[in-house]
Structures are given as structure tokens and as C-alpha cells.
């Protein structure tokens, strides 16, 4: 892995150059929170706030995706939208959010030959080059280390930037990353041994700053035995059934497909959906297999901590902490898993 450095004052120059050659997406402050948006001026980039409110999954698994459009009448034709495949650089993505893509990739891109490959997700995923940014100061509810992850993990990005004082320590992880660097003018320098040491120390300090921990050991097996436990009724009592935990989750990926039309035009859209809604499992017959909040809260926990590990060998949680941060009734997933472990069966 190539190790480079970039003086901080050169960052606008770098972003300017990337922006002139490719589409550049980055974290921008808007209405008091961070959002990933198209960057027109490097000055718009905000690297002080840790996480974007809505995770950058929305860049690849868009909240609203038009699958096709049609016009009514004699000459009606179904038109599929052309999906942009030109290179797009996503700058400033945090390692946990980048890991979120890796977790949901099998859902949309298939696991084995013959699996359906979703063109919308796949093309957006393939066109994106991820320039990650290590988290030097993790927040209250960060717990990525509980999933053998690190706030400076290089594994899920193409290039990783780590703030080591006056400079960024730049690790070029993948071929995609190498190609991008080659395309840019020579503003990077080779990293020294000393800088490499500072980078490691920075990572260690960040790991130490993470105060919350989820103990996931044995969770899958324990959950196998407590589907009908009273615990789920108690846990779901305070749930008001909003979709915050699912919409702000970097790995939640449920969607609904709807036909929307006007008198002359119409289209089929794919929109985010949430298992926290009563309507989500409501059958046309009127029957609902998940009739109460208990069923829905339980399903979400099982999906992340039982079904995901069984199907894909990975927990469906990145430890970003958003669901804990924004739950209006403080349903805290770390506490839920702790209680699962304590529950008598």
C-alpha cells in the first residue's frame, strides 16, 4: 500500500482538481447538520462534524430511484433511464459508513453466479471512488471497534486520509485509488517513517477514545433461542414506530416499489421503506404477519444480529451510533444487545 502525505493547505487544491475532472461529492453543513452533497467549491467541505446525519448509503442506494418511465397513449414507450457510469469521487466518507456499503453489497450485487445484479446500485457503486477520512475524535455513541473495525480502517475505502496534525497521511489502498492518484498532479509527497508512526499513534488514540462497547459474542446463538421471549414486548413498549433508526442506518436497505403517474406520464419508482412501519408487512388480504411493535422491533434486531450473520457471515451493524443518537425514545441498540445476553431463557 502506497503511503503519501498531503499538507493540509493543499487540500482545497486537490479537491479543486478532482472537481474539475470528475464529479465530486463531499460532506457539507446544511441546516445545522452534515450531508453528502455535490461539491462545487472546496470551501464548502466540512470535515469538523464527524458523521453525516443521513448516511452516505443514500448516494448509492438512493432514497428515490426511477426504474422506468412511460407515456400513455398511442405512441407510448417504456423508457429506462440511462445510469451515469462516469467516475465519481466521494470524499470524506468515514470508515464505518464505507463498511456499510460492503455489508449491503451482496444484497444488490449478488453473492454467487446467477444472482440478480441490480444495475442501479451496482453501477453507482462501481463508478464511485471512496476517499475515506479517519475519525480522530469519535463521538459518544461510536462503537465501530465492537465489530473488529477501527476509526482508521483502510479496508473499505480506495484511499484513506488521516489527519496527523499539519498534514494528511494518505494511504492508497486499491487500484482504483492508485489510478486516481496517477491522474492528479504531483502534490503528494512520500510519507516518512516518522509520519507513519504518528498515523499509527493517532489511530490508537482514536480507538481509546471510543467509550461504548457492544459485546456481540454469542449473540447469534442466544437470539436463536429467544424469539418468543417476553423481552421483546418490554423492549418495544416505548417504540413509537417512526422510521428514524432504519432511514439513518447505513445498512438498512429495504425498499418499496410504486407506480406513480399523472394523466399522461408515469413511472415506476423504488423508494426506501422501513420495517418499523405497520404498513410494511401489511398484506393485501388485510393480514399482517408483524401486527405489533414487538414484532417489528424484534425483526430489526434479528435482521442485524442473527439473520445477517447467518446469511452473510457479518453483523448488519457498523457501530456508527446513529440509531442511538436520534431515537426519540432512547432505544439503545447497545443496551438491547446487553439485555439479550442477560435474558433468562
Amino acid at each position: 500500500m502506497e503511503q503519501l502525505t498531503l499538507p493540509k493547505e493543499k487540500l482545497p487544491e486537490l479537491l479543486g482538481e478532482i472537481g474539475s475532472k470528475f464529479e465530486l461529492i463531499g460532506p457539507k453543513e446544511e441546516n445545522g447538520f452534515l450531508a453528502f452533497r455535490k461539491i462545487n467549491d472546496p470551501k464548502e467541505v466540512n470535515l469538523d462534524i464527524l458523521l453525516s446525519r443521513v448516511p452516505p448509503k443514500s448516494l448509492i442506494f438512493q432514497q428515490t430511484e426511477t426504474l422506468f418511465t412511460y407515456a400513455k397513449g398511442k405512441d407510448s414507450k417504456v423508457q429506462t433511464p440511462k445510469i451515469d457510469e462516469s467516475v465519481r469521487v466521494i470524499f470524506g466518507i468515514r470508515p464505518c459508513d464505507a463498511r456499510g456499503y460492503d455489508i449491503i453489497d451482496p444484497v444488490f450485487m449478488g453473492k454467487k453466479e446467477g444472482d440478480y445484479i441490480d444495475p442501479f446500485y451496482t453501477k453507482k457503486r462501481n463508478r464511485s471512488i471512496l476517499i475515506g477520512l479517519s475519525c480522530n475524535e469519535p463521538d459518544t455513541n461510536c462503537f465501530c471497534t465492537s465489530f473488529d473495525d477501527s476509526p482508521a480502517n483502510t479496508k473499505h475505502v480506495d484511499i484513506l486520509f488521516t489527519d496527523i496534525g499539519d498534514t494528511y497521511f494518505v494511504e492508497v489502498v486499491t487500484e482504483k485509488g492508485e489510478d486516481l492518484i496517477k491522474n492528479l498532479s504531483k502534490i503528494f509527497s512520500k510519507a516518512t517513517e516518522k509520519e507513519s508512526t504518528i498515523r499509527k499513534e493517532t489511530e490508537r488514540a482514536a480507538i481509546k477514545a471510543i467509550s461504548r462497547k457492544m459485546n456481540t459474542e454469542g449473540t447469534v446463538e442466544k437470539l436463536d433461542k429467544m424469539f418468543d421471549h417476553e423481552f421483546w414486548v418490554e423492549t418495544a413498549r416505548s417504540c413509537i414506530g417512526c422510521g428514524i433508526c432504519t432511514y439513518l442506518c447505513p445498512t438498512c436497505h429495504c425498499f418499496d416499489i410504486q407506480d406513480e403517474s399523472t394523466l399522461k406520464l408515469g413511472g415506476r419508482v423504488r423508494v426506501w421503506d422501513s420495517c418499523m412501519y405497520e404498513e410494511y408487512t401489511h398484506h393485501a388480504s388485510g393480514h399482517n404477519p408483524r401486527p405489533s411493535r414487538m414484532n417489528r422491533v424484534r425483526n430489526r434486531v434479528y435482521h442485524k444480529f442473527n439473520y445477517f450473520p447467518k446469511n452473510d457471515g457479518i453483523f448488519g451493524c457498523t457501530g456508527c451510533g446513529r440509531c442511538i443518537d436520534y431515537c426519540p425514545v432512547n432505544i439503545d441498540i447497545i443496551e438491547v444487545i446487553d439485555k439479550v445476553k442477560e435474558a433468562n431463557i
Partner: protein
Amino acid sequence: MVENKELIKVVEETVSRDDVKYVVGYKRGTYGFQIKPAFAYSAKDAKEFFYSPLCAKNLATYPLLEEKLPLRRGEEAEHKKIGIVVKGCDSRAIIQIIQEKGLEREDVVLIGIPCKGVIDPKKIAKRFPKQSKFVDVEENNNDEYILEIGGTSHKIPKDELLSDVCKSCEYPNPLLYDILIGEAEEEFQPEHFNRVDELKEKTIEERWEYWEKHFQNCIRCYACREACPLCYCKTCMVDLLEPQWVRRSVNLSENTAWNVMRAFHLAGRCISCGECERACPVNIPLMELNKFVEKEVKEMFNYTAGLDTEEKPFLGSFRPDDPEDFIS
């Protein structure tokens, strides 16, 4: 000041009654300034109940979240009361729901708490970030909040952390209750909800730009609806597919439709607890819409929601002597 001992005692007594199913109140949350709804099914569950200026959440939404699941053969529906800890605004929510026949007075036992205003969770989290342990806050008699973090005591002027809706609250004391804890607070002079006044001074174009900026961020998670005690329709019209009034596509047009519709459906019904705005994950200033509508309803029809269970609902009443001046 609400004595926690007294609160716990009252909750214990209430939940021990044969006709009460459970009592919902507040308990300490898992980190920072978070509180959690607490449910007592027996006297021993009451021990964790507490009250402090952090207890902003309006719990009036819970009796309506009760699921009436299909009964098994031979099973009979339970007709038991739900105990709820209510502040002034929360009690008004209950009054409004009873007025609309969403609940019967006998369905609930109200444990009233005279409120001195609650802390805005966003303001306090910004002031004291990164608190991984629960921190409680007390209010002294000098209009200051006192909290202790890592052995250091902090005194913050109340005005800096108080929720905006509380500054303009006219009814801090519960208007409907079965048991009142402590003494009723003295009425204080409410301020105008400044944010609406500021908005009214803007031109229509500026206002549109302002709302456009906010509505385009809406992710339609419907947390505003679910958190609202008055949004309890069995099927919300945005969930309807046939006819589909609001499309599922998330874009400025549909988001605007949803947000405006939500505010309109609360005309003469919103009791200004601020729960929708607190729940919104993308900081949409929803109370500005609600307060705007509230003001119009007051000025045109001299109507205030949630004051009297016997009164007719705003949209179901007609008075020839409305103060409105738009028809002459």
C-alpha cells in the same frame, strides 16, 4: 420542584389499583441528557421513575399506540386504565384526544406535574457534547439549571437551554389530572413564539426559499407524525395507496405536500408540546408551521385547542360571532 419520592409513591399507588394496567412516566436514559419512557406494571417497576427538566417527551401518545391484537377464542378484551405522567401540554393533548373521542376520560389516570418548562435536548447536547453517561439536571429558584459533569458543577441560565415552545407556553400546569404532584406553578407571562414573528416579516419569496431549504432535506421517516400525540388516525392519508394523495417519491414537491398537510391536519388541534420538532432527524422547524396555524386559528376563530374536554372540536364547531374580519 417535583419530589421524586412523591412521584414514585404516587406511581406505586396508581399501578397497584386493580383497574390500572400500567403507568407510563420517565426514567433515566442510557447516555448524556437522554430520558426514556418508563412503564410500570407493578409497584416495583415504579422505583426507576423520575422527573427533571430533561423530561420533555410527551407521553400522551402511548395510550393510542396500544395495539388491539385479534383475540383468541374465549379471550376477552381488557378494559383497564393507563396511568400517564403529564405536564401542562401533555394534559392538553389528552383533553384534545378526549374531545375528539379518541379516548374516554375513564381510559386514563393522569398524574399531573406542574411544569417549569423543559430543556431542549438539542441545545443541551450542543452545550455539553460527548457525555457517555447519563447526566441529570436540576432547576434552582434563580432560573438556573444546575448539572454536574465529572465532579464539576455547572450553572446555566435557564433561558439558554429552555425549549422554544416552553417560552411561549400559557398552560404550564396540567389542566386535567387525577393526582397532582407538588404545588401548581405560578402562571408566568408567556413570550410570543418569536420564530413565527420573524417569519411573518419576510416576503413570500423569502419564506418559500426558507421552507424549500428545509423540506428538501425531509426523509419522510414520519417521526413527526409518530411522535405527535394528536396524529393518531388509524390510517394516515399519506399511507393510503388508493387514492394516493401523496406520492412515495421523496422530492421537494411531495415533501412539501406532506409537511403542509401535516400542519393543516393539526389546525385547532396542536397543543404546542413541540414533540414533532424534537423528533425530526433533519432539523425541520415544524413548530413554526404549527404555531403559525395556531395563531391564525386564534385570531380568526378565537379558538384554543385542548382546554376543555366538553368543548366541540374546532373544525366541528360553528359560531356566528367569530372575530374573523375577512368576510364583511
